[in-house]
């Protein structure tokens, strides 16, 4: 349903998202290059990168299959089922390592499937990471936990990771984050030179890529965009917030309705939450710095609980994004069977109501019911544009 954009760089990014594991394979092929898969975005990629390992995120394939149903309970989300499937299908046997950090339970189980049943027992690592990001002791704990991960990697590659290595990796990754941020900033414009789905696609690709290559491509892209004229006058501005969604079809759908509507922001761990933070570069202790960076992120709803008040820190970010990107409507997306996400929606709706922003909820599965979601989105636009006979 997606007509390809003209921009060749964006095409290259899109190609990577569509052929994720082929790209990852190409990284490892021939060369001495080590490649690691990661399942939760709280894995400190910098540490892997400093050791010369390229981290690639494991995402879903949207192949409808029942195979995983006899490994994982029905009531785990389709995203975790699909990621588990990648392992069971041996799509990623070439990986040298699979890593995750204490994540939501569903994704944790996807990781377990790889370890137990897909032959990764001997090449896997689970990084203990807080389930509440905002406690005082979290900092020290994460630094120590990352330290142990660093030692594990040093043993694996049997060469030590120096502070310089870490510093370089931090700079490369921060660079990616800054470039991506600049890309998303375009969407604040009334007629940006790039569309929301394109930005989302590029962001998704960045999670699969060697960051050096990624940064080069991003810089070229930004150069072109800065000179490129904006696209046609934009329509209704829709912001997406919720859980992991690597199905770009949904975002394309938003821009291919029978009305003119635009995707202007995506708050999810496959989009903004992946990169909307930086690791401080001026700290003497690099591990502490990385810990500080990762704890300062937009929290995943499964990890968001400010001690003392129970406040959700993520809501502050969302309100900021609403101020900056000025959406006319909000689209909640979450995986069917996910619990943290819908439980945040309950508390978010009153906030949107106060702001007078209408919303709709899309329940994600392996595949998307295009006509149903299309109807929901068009109905949302009709409400925003006050359509009546």
């Amino acid at each position: 349903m997606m007509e390809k954009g003209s921009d060749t760089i964006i095409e290259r990014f899109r190609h990577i998202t569509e052929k994720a594991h082929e790209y990852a394979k190409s990284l490892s092929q021939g060369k001495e290059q080590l490649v690691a898969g990661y399942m939760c975005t709280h894995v400190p990629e910098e540490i892997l990168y400093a050791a010369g390992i390229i981290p690639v995120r494991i995402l879903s394939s949207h192949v409808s299959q029942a195979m995983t149903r006899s490994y994982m309970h029905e009531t785990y989300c389709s995203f975790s089922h699909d990621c588990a499937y990648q392992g069971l299908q041996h799509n990623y046997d070439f990986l040298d390592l699979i890593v995750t950090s204490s994540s939501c339970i569903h994704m944790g189980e996807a990781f377990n499937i790889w370890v137990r049943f897909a032959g990764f027992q001997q090449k896997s690592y689970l990084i203990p990471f807080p389930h509440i990001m905002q406690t005082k002791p979290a900092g020290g704990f994460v630094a120590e936990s990352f330290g142990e991960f660093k030692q594990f990697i040093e043993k694996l590659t049997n060469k030590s990771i120096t502070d310089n290595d870490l510093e370089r990796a931090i700079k490369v990754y921060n660079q990616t984050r800054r470039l991506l941020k600049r890309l998303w900033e375009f969407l604040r414009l009334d007629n940006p030179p790039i569309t929301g789905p394109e930005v989302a696609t590029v962001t998704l690709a960045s999670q699969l890529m060697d960051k050096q290559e990624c940064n080069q491509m991003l810089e070229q892209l930004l150069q072109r965009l800065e000179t490129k004229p904006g696209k046609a006058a934009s329509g209704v501005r829709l912001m997406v917030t919720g859980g992991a969604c690597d199905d770009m079809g949904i975002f394309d759908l938003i821009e291919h309705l029978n009305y003119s509507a635009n995707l202007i922001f995506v708050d999810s761990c496959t989009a903004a939450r992946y990169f909307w933070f930086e690791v401080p570069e001026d700290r003497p202790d690099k591990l502490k710095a990385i810990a500080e960076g990762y704890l300062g992120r937009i929290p995943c709803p499964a990890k968001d609980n400010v001690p003392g008040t129970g406040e959700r820190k993520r809501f502050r970010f969302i309100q900021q994004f609403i101020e900056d990107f000025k959406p006319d409507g909000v689209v909640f997306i979450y995986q069917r069977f996910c619990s943290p996400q819908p439980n945040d929606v309950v508390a978010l709706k009153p906030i949107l109501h106060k702001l007078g922003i209408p919303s709709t909820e899309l329940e994600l599965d392996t595949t998307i019911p295009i006509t149903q979601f299309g109807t929901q989105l068009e109905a949302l636009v009709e409400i925003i544009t006050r359509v009546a006979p």
Partner: protein
Amino acid sequence: MIAAGVDIGAVSSKAVILQDGQPYAFSLVATRTPEESAFRAMNAALGQIDLKLENIDYIAATGRGRTQVPFARITVSEIACGAAGAVHIWGPSVRTVLDAGGEGCKVIQCTEKGRATAFLWNDKCAAGIGRSMEAFADLVKKEVTEIGKIALQSDKFPKIGDFCSVYAQSEALDLIRSKVPVEQIIAAYHYAMAKRIATLVARSGVNKDFVIIGGLAKNPGIIDRVESILKVSRLAPKPEWDPALTAALGAALFADSFYRRQSDTSTTAGVSQACLTYPI
């Protein structure tokens, strides 16, 4: 001036034709493939008034299959159409519309002008209630039009899971083992489905006046229970309007007004991709 609306639903397809805004003809046929059903529905309605497709000035399509209707000039969501149709039928006091269709249940909030202001779509596990009624009717070897009345014959019946129509079906089948009379099993199944729908309505919020449209609106076994669970009664259905036609009527009203506003290019509704390749 003749305007028409077609509603290609998951289970049935409907057409409503208006002459100068007044009801002229309508039809309801089973949905097979959307395009073919669109023609069948339209022709059925046209047949009543000896008109041809080209005699119609403007056609709007709604429903799940709306993008597959080649002869439609515009498409409008069944949310907007449901609200518009309901207010046209029941008047400006309508605020909450439950559209209980074959595949999905939607709850629509609207203004006195029939403009939708918010809606709630059923969650995946509550899908297919309408169609499951047909499967259930087959299992009990009764007519789908009959079971609704049978369901109301017993006020005492075992409670079965209302979370998912497939579970409910298994549980209903299993009640046979405990020798529960068939009427009670039918009642139990209807209550469960009604409870599931009522939860959606309450989740979205019921504001008076409340009306129910869509195919299930014709099943008293569901509707009466929904009302009693919600402790709110809907406006009585109008004899002259089959509630299943409400969205199609809404589409026809949109067609009517867009025809009048045709000159005005600032219309917010887009033109369906299909009709570009299908000059009328």
